[in-house]
């Protein structure tokens, strides 16, 4: 039976059982994974085929999923859970499928050569540095979703992800890692990646000295992305509005006028760009913060019944095994006001250029405080003067948002909770804490 026939037959069977709210999903995918560790190399190929069904009504429901083909005549369980409502079909919106979705997956030799090239470039950039572990994954998938409310959606994805762990110094005294994703593995640039690892290793040595300092602080995209990801409770979900309202100043702003934050499920060139979300609801652009003013949180259709906020197709399914969960798809800082990064660095008279963030952060929205582990350089008159490691960026959450003085043009996305995008940010009003003070 064809996949579309499997799906519609399943809905017919469930409807015949009196289950008015029913949804069926099938997913197929394939991928290649190349993994290189100390003395080992693993090349994997996988193909997946799974399905998921949830059905019920205003009294109860069930959720079942499994591998292989969807069997419409499967022995469906009795609904024994919470009531369920499913979305109605959204009005059709234009969608042009990116032409690189169907490019072939990275080959074994090609993928291993990429890891080898990064290793060689890293040794050239920083003699003594070594790649401890590298994993390259390249995969594509196709999902079909139908429901009894008229939703019919087909979603294709194509993602390549790269994880690199590197060390430098005696006994691996300095260690760092990067994790990034692109549409195709062929877009990873070994020299640029090696340079980034070398920069991070250069500031990842054990911390020296203690103290607190203020100044102008330049946050590289990797640090800005981490900040935005930690601020998601302010931007996503029904509680976000309440949290954001506590940060409003007299002019009603929650952030500097330079800050505009957008989520867009169909962002051109975006890694997860799709016409519909994990429930088949049409995706769209949603402005969350505009020129420092909070516009609305990111809400799924069932989180905003009749309120002022416009819901978006933002329910994501990690796999066919998972239920849809609202969250960002491509959530990013708009860089229409951006300036060249070199210019931003020149503006720093005395301060810091923070390029990396790893380790646990603490964000307290009740107390309006945060602490984020960071590493980078001290900067004097626009020049890096000394590495800063084992430090933390600290201050108020509102102070960070309102202290953004300028943005770079270098908007970069990283796979976190969805794709989070941020350019270099110039911020004032925060502290850099070094060592144990």
């Amino acid at each position, binding site marked *: 039976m064809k996949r579309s026939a499997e799906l519609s037959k399943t809905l017919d069977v469930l409807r015949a059982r009196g289950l008015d709210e029913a949804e069926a999903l099938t997913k197929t995918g394939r991928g290649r994974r190349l*993994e290189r*560790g*100390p*003395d*080992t*190399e*693993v*090349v*994997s*190929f*996988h*193909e*997946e*085929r*799974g399905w998921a069904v949830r059905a*019920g009504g205003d009294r*109860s*429901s*069930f*959720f*079942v*999923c*499994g*591998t*292989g*083909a969807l069997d419409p005549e499967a*022995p*469906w*369980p*009795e*609904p*024994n*859970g*919470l*009531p*369920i*409502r*499913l*979305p109605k079909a959204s009005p059709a919106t234009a969608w042009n499928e990116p032409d690189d979705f169907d490019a072939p997956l990275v080959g*074994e030799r090609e993928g291993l050569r990429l890891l080898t090239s990064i290793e060689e470039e890293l040794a050239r950039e920083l003699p003594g540095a070594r790649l*401890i*572990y590298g994993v390259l994954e390249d995969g594509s998938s196709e999902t079909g979703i139908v429901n009894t409310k008229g939703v019919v959606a087909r979603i294709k994805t194509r993602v390549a992800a790269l994880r690199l762990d590197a*060390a430098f110094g005696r*006994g*691996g*005294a300095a*260690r760092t890692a990067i994790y990034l994703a692109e549409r195709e593995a062929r877009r990873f640039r070994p020299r640029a990646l090696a340079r980034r690892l070398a920069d991070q290793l250069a500031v990842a040595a054990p911390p020296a000295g203690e103290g607190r300092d203020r100044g102008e602080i330049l946050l590289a995209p990797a640090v800005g992305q981490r900040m935005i990801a930690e601020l998601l409770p302010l931007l996503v979900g*029904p509680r976000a509005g309440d949290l954001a309202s506590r940060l409003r100043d007299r002019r009603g702003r929650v952030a500097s006028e330079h800050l505009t934050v957008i989520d867009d499920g169909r962002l051109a060139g975006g890694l997860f760009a799709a016409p519909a979300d994990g*429930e088949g609801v049409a995706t769209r652009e949603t402005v969350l913060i505009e020129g420092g003013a909070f516009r609305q949180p990111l809400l*799924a*259709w*069932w*989180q905003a*019944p009749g309120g002022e906020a416009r819901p978006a197709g933002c*329910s994501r399914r990690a796999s066919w*095994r998972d*239920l*849809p*969960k*609202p969250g960002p798809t491509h959530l990013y800082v708009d860089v229409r006001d951006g300036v060249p990064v070199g210019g931003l660095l020149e503006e720093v008279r005395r301060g810091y250029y923070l390029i990396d963030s790893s380790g646990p952060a603490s964000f307290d929205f009740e107390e309006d405080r945060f602490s984020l582990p960071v590493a980078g350089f001290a900067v004097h008159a626009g020049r890096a003067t000394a590495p800063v490691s084992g430090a933390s960026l600290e201050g108020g959450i509102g102070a960070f948002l309102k202290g953004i003085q300028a943005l770079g043009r270098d908007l970069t996305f990283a796979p976190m909770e969805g794709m989070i995008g941020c350019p270099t940010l110039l911020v004032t009003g925060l502290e850099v804490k070094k060592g144990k003070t």
Partner: protein
Amino acid sequence: MPFSDLDRAAVARALAQIAQHEDDRPEAYFERLEEVELPPDTPPARGAGGGQVPGLAVRREDGFALRLSRGGRSWLAARDGIEPRLFAEALRQVARVLPTAVYPEPQLPVRPWPGPPRAEEMLAFPSRLQRAIRTRHVAFPLGLTLRRHRRHIQVVHLDPSAEGERESFYSCAVELPWGGYGTLFTELDEGTVDRLASTLVGLFRSRHALPPEAFQGTVVLAPAAAAVLLHEAVAHALEADVLAQGGKPDAAVGVELGSSLLNVLDDPGAAPKGVRRSTDDEGVPICRRWLLRAGVVAEPLADTSWASGSDALIAGAGRRGGRHSAPSPRSSHLELLPGTQSIEELLAGAEGGLYIAEARRGALDPESGRFELEVPYARRIRGGIATDPVGRCRIIGRVAELLAGVNGLGSDARAAGAGWCAKGGRKLPVWATCPTLRIEGVEIEP
């Protein structure tokens, strides 16, 4: 058993077709997984809606992976579903031959899934837990997610003699207004309800306690906390792939890693009933493996890939997160042999220190040996007893210094500290049997 009708000899004959070199090790891994999930019994925020968990969720998977290992290299092909055509395709992929090559399609009879699963014991559990909490004269909101996990595996090599294995256990994740808690059980009996209720009430009673000031001193770890510490500081530290990040894994054998009181084993055969194993996830017989004998490294954890290149490493500790990933050396059931001291004696030697009943999670940096253990709450030890609670804090330090500081072992070894280990993104259940442990010179930070 879903794989009891599988013709293992036919599978082995098919695997023999792709072994070209003397040291080639082809292997087939079949798995059947079932997870039944009971979500928190809380209504959706704004009425019923999409995105909310709809009652008992059932996840069922069948699949397999073929692997060809040659020295330190391996090729793996995994499929969802178990069918002869998929098997032949996967054989071609691991053999890395053109699609025109013809490989046999062995018959792969797998027993069908039974009807929808029953889970009465799970449905009754939340109210039993609430009752047990109320008998302690407290009440608080909690969101309990309970899952039942069943896993059947069958591994076939060129020698198809390995029998299938079965695991069945429960996991729970509890969301509380002041933090989360998670653990694993093999049964939902009265003892399980009682232990979980005690832990949750302990978290409730310490919710407003202030973290301690940073200090260096003595801590007494209850079995559950000791198990988490040993999992991070001994088991992960002695995995062959982790050791390889700093040099040759066999070089660790004979190194003094901790106090001579420490005798630590990994023994999947002594794990609780329901998760006890006789072979690992590579079909290799397990052994009672001495990780530390009197504080000295004896037998690091290894799978076939690491053991094949070494005389000092023994296979039998290969574990897989699933068919889509290759096996790697991991512990299954960690055992710290008990000492002779009573809990009173251990506390008496820890004046001014902390008694730690639970540890949330740990982290180890394998290269530097730096270690961190998160503690949700503890009790200050005064006059030989655990008194007032202190809030969240961390034990930090280097593994060797921490383990060298062990100066007391209780006689009360018991099953404790079971949980999920997610090293490298591969989530695996881990089990332990531990006594109470006392360590001096420990650095505590709020």
